[in-house]
């Protein structure tokens, strides 16, 4: 394991315990997801190429830990930032890491577009059914009846229905791979490790966009022990968020075209500029024809 920084210098200056300890609460699933990400990056030998886009929320400090290129994004915008990074440096392996408030609420437009563009990036979506960083408020993924700081008597119909992101993504044409995994027992953890690794592999092979939804535990805001929180995810989240591969067209879909390097050749530029700017069509020449 060498993809974690030897000392977390960005975590309160790396002084004392914080130099090798995360900011996460005991039993939080984020640490496991970080670990599987680090292991996959190590196994694939892509540490130098990897750029991690950290979200807003508890995982905002992903860049404290992962010894890769790090970019921190605004709330919900990580997929847009990831696309900018990927298009600017296509050889980079871009991981967009988001929680449920980030991806499924404020950032729903950005993730939909990124998925439909299909450009090879890896989205790790951590679903713990709650807003963690802001203190346990209702998320788009909060279960019906679940009590949170902003659904104190439990989520009811007037607060909207839980959003099944993996199923929604699987309906889109853009992604090549979508899977929902969990962390609550050994078997699930092995599957989560494999799924995260597969997502990165698909990007290394330039296959396309993939999204791994990870059902995770937030013991603090569920007001449960870590063991109880694992049980809660299994008992309560699984019926709403069934696990498994939701979409896999990696075998049938053509890989993404090879990336090219932008041209700064004066002759090429002059030739392009010579394409008569005024000839850009300003009006449509007819009604679109049906397929």
């Amino acid at each position: 394991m060498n993809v974690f920084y030897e000392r977390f210098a960005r975590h309160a200056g790396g002084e004392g315990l914080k130099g090798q300890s995360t900011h996460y609460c005991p039993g939080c699933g984020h640490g496991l997801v970080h670990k599987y990400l680090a292991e996959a990056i190590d196994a694939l030998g892509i540490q130098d190429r990897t750029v991690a886009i950290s979200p807003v929320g508890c995982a905002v400090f992903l860049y404290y830990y992962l010894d890769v290129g790090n970019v921190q994004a605004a709330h919900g915008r990580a997929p847009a930032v990831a696309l900018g990074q990927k298009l600017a440096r296509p050889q980079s392996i871009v991981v967009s890491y988001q929680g449920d408030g980030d991806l499924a609420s404020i950032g729903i437009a950005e993730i939909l577009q990124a998925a439909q563009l299909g450009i090879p990036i890896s989205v790790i979506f951590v679903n713990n059914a709650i807003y963690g960083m802001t203190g346990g408020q209702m998320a788009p993924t909060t279960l019906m009846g679940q009590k949170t700081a902003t659904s104190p008597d439990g989520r009811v119909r007037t607060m909207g229905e839980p959003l099944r992101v993996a199923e929604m993504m699987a309906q889109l044409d853009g992604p090549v791979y979508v899977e929902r995994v969990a962390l609550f027992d050994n078997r699930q953890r092995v599957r989560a490790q494999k799924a995260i690794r597969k997502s990165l592999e698909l990007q290394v092979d330039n296959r396309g966009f993939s999204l791994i939804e990870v059902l995770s535990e937030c013991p603090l805001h569920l007001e449960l022990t870590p063991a109880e929180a694992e049980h809660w995810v299994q008992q309560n989240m699984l019926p709403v968020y069934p696990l498994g591969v939701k979409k896999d067209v990696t075998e049938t879909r053509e890989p993404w075209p090879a990336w090219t390097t932008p041209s700064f050749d004066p002759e090429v530029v002059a030739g392009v500029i010579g394409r008569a700017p005024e000839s850009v069509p300003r009006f449509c020449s007819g009604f679109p024809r049906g397929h």
Partner: protein
Amino acid sequence: MRAATERPKPVLVPQFCKGCGRCIDACAHHCITAGTDVNPASALIPVVLDLERCTACGLCFDACPEPYGLQPDHETPDRRRAPAAVPVPDTVAPLPEGEPLVVKGMYASALGAIVAGCRHFFGYPITPSTEGSELMAKFLPHLDGAFVQAVSEVAAINMMYGAAAAGVRSMTFTSSPGFSLMLEGLSYMIGARLPGVVVNVMRGGPGLGNIGPSQSDIKLACRGLGHGDSHAIVLAPATPQEMLDLTALAFDLAFAYRNPVVVLADGYLGQMTGKVAMPRQLTRPGVPDWCTAGDAAHRGNVITSIFLNETDLEANNRELFATYDDIHHAEQRAELVACEDADVLVVACNTPARMAKGAVSALRAAGIKAGLFRPITLWPFPIRALTPLLDRVDRIVVVEASHRQLEDELRLALSHAGAPPVPIERVNRYGGILPSHDEIVDAVVTIGGAEAAS
């Protein structure tokens, strides 16, 4: 599968164990139990290992959320430090000479971006800026660049954030309502010290307003780039040629100061066709040392605007303000027309400056000593070029297509410079209408000046 004897058993560094106990259930042989003693270093209760029955299955490692909690025994990580990145400087290459082009302002601006080395464009269509995006959509595929029509202006500016983090020159074209949506992203870019160019072709507001020319985003560009103490250089072109030149300059300034640059045009300027000479050279951008280029040399970099520790954020902001000071010192730009002996100064920018130029010329022909002071940088306001003129100036007439927004920039700059009080009058038009030549002439000859002639 490896033989059990080859596999490492776990070791625990107790102070890095938060005692969550996720490893307890993971172990089939009950080697791990909840602890009872508080660790003096962490003030938490770590688990206790009894490895007599341990088969080194390794499942407990995968259940521990802490990177340095439960670890395989005797594992010495193979670690490669990220080497320090060395900046690759920009270079220039001569462009083949050619006849001047006759193009509209939006096209001129896009051409400026191309010669400045911009190959990444992210935008959302909005009138009256769209032709710029259309030209980029046409050009960039031939230059192996990237054109993305984003799902919104919010997404577009964040794609710029990502491209800028990766160290490339990126831009967008937008117009006032779209610019409002980009302010969040601009604040993040400023906070994260990221360069990029936003060309805002101002139209009538507030709200949906209309698609006529306006200058009513001067306040936003100069004083309101999202939350925080955020500022960016604001360039105000007045001709199609300047749409090209200032867009190209914007990229150099953005990367020189690691801060976004706003090119503030108006709807007429975007649509106005004019003769445009191409620059003699183009820029081949280098690779900054601070970016996330996705390679070994840049692995150690982080791009972020969050500084949790208050003193860290204050230090970051002080650096930002030092950059602002440098900008104020080095980047004030203005055009002065017949100002040396002027009794009345007309202050105007963008298309209204063209009307003002004509008005000054007519006033001079009538024997009135009028001059035009045209700020090219609205932020920083070019006060150093203005103050020497104030000794003999009787009045200033600010001409603008907004409600005193340019005038407020002028007044702030005069106040900060401790300039002597000068009567300031104004010609303001709104709602997609620009001040006319006659209105400006009337305002200058009418001592005590009219409010707007409208």
